[in-house]
């Protein structure tokens, strides 16, 4: 059962080949047996899952089931889930039981999906390896010595290990696409504003966007359609209607104009990873696409731009964690200032504190123009270069990461080395664009991803382009040994 895609599971459930309760029980037992070595879940909600599955079975029996009714999923522990601990991977929220559901959670619940639990993540989504979690690192099912990427590392590992057919994620600088690439699955980061941010714990509000990690583009289309759309509770939610993503998956790619940014294929890219990307481009040529080289000259500045904008917004967003209304409070505070400083000093991990400090510094008196204002100008420059590229091509393609998964501990001593790992994904968030990563090869036994980037609100086209590739390749069907 666990090897089936959502589309296949849905057909089986409707045909009563097995029930949602049986499917849920099966996946819970896999989590029990296999997650000890992966650490992909922070909380498993077995009881709630079985109750939701039983309700889904009744709904199917009444003939009221939709395509997602009875399908199990896991939520990244950044999404608020009513009555269930929502930790954001932090000691700060280790004791926080959310009083409400995020919009993403309630929409998928309404569609009849069954939550198996909450997945591990970098603390407050700040990291690219899942090593900053208060709950310990997640291991990559392809090689337990390597990282699964981050920050949605638990979601990625759980889907790759077939513990769940789909998991939600969030992507502020690559946190869906990068882990999807490193564990060999499909990851979709939608356009900024496409999916509601209500109830999704904020990191950098102008960059954060929720999305999905699945095995196939077809599965991503099904789930994304259910979670997208206008939400009055999110002031940056887009009113644009949500197209039927799965309805256009089969469209022809004849005449598709693909652009490859030369800055994506530079000397920073691992040579075998490059070969995998080039082989994927050949598949697209065979499908009728034309491939040309384009340029995004300011791409190299995307990482420094991000490390001004994101920490600045984070320092503001995370000021709400003060030890007063919810979350961690230090023991025996001497006075109010001591309560604030020690609750935050003890409740946050090193990387989160580093980013709050960076953000506070770049926003402080005398530095605002030199850093924050300058970064917002360079950000506009980067967005402009993307707009110019999309006048000539329909979709941009390149690698998702510079190399396959690295070993645990390899990049934890120098923050800059870790930050540069997101060189190909960060610019997409700065410009608010949608991006997809699909598996396109194995390098020394580890998966690598092909990244697809489109203009704002081009999710339907990107999913179509991803789906056609998956019909011509089997990288997305490869399974890590032992799972």
């Amino acid at each position, binding site marked *: 059962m666990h090897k089936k895609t959502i589309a296949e599971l849905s057909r089986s459930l409707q045909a009563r080949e097995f029930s949602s309760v049986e499917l849920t029980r099966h996946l819970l037992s896999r989590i029990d047996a296999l997650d000890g070595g992966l650490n992909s879940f922070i909380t498993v909600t077995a009881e709630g899952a079985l109750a939701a599955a039983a309700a889904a079975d009744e709904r199917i029996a009444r003939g009221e089931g939709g395509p997602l009714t009875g399908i199990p999923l896991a939520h990244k522990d950044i999404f608020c889930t009513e009555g269930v601990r929502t930790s954001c991977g932090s000691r700060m929220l280790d004791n926080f039981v959310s009083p409400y559901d995020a919009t993403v959670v309630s929409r998928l619940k309404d569609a009849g999906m069954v939550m198996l639990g909450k997945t591990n993540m970098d603390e407050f989504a700040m990291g690219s390896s899942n090593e900053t979690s208060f709950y310990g690192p997640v291991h990559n099912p392809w090689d337990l010595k390597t990282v699964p990427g981050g920050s949605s590392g638990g979601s990625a590992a759980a889907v790759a290990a077939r513990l769940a057919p789909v998991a939600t994620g969030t992507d502020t600088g690559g946190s869906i696409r990068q882990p999807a690439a490193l564990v060999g699955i499909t990851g979709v980061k939608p356009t900024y504003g496409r999916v509601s941010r209500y109830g999704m714990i904020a990191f950098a509000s102008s960059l954060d966007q929720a999305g999905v990690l699945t095995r196939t583009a077809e599965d991503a289309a099904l789930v994304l359609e259910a979670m997208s759309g206008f939400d009055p509770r999110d002031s940056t939610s887009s009113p644009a209607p949500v197209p039927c993503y799965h309805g256009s998956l089969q469209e022809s790619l004849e005449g598709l104009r693909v652009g490859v940014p030369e800055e994506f294929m530079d000397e920073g890219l691992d040579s075998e990873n490059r070969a995998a990307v080039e082989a994927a481009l050949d598949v697209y040529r065979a499908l009728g696409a034309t491939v040309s080289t384009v340029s995004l000259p300011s791409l190299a*500045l995307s990482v420094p731009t991000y490390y001004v904008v994101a920490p600045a917004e984070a320092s503001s967003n995370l000021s709400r964690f003060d030890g007063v209304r919810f979350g961690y409070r230090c023991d025996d505070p001497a006075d109010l200032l001591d309560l604030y400083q020690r609750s*935050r000093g003890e409740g946050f991990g090193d990387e989160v504190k580093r980013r709050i400090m960076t953000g506070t*510094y770049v926003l402080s008196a005398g530095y605002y123009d030199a850093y924050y204002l300058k970064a*917002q100008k360079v950000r506009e420059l980067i967005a402009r270069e993307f707009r110019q590229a999309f006048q000539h091509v329909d979709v941009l393609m390149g690698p998702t990461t510079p190399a396959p998964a690295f070993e645990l501990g390899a990049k934890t001593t120098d923050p800059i080395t870790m930050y540069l790992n997101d060189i190909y994904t960060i610019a997409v968030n700065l410009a608010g664009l949608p991006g997809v990563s699909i598996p396109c090869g194995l390098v020394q036994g580890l998966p690598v991803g092909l990244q697809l980037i489109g203009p704002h609100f081009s999710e339907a086209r990107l999913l179509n382009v991803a789906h056609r590739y998956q019909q011509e390749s089997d990288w997305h069907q490869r399974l890590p040994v032992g799972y």
Partner: protein
Amino acid sequence: MSLTKQEVESVARLARLEITEGEIGRVVEKLSSIIDFVDQLQTANTDDVMPMAHPLDMGQRLRTDEIFEADQRNRYQVNAPEVEAGLYLVPKVIE
């Protein structure tokens, strides 16, 4: 550009973060390297560029100012470290 210990302590105070004596050396070093790294931005020519206000060029949506949710203080205070009579308790602020 290297930050001084005093500058880092002042940022930590603004951010309401306790940094212990044992940590401060490491924090100064890493924060300095991050600020050095983002200083690359100064090389970009942005003379004719307006700073980005919103990735989609959208305006801020407004809504009418009316009450549409009920008071849920009791539910929210379940997560509070210390409450009394519906109030959040903190150490004494005024002697």
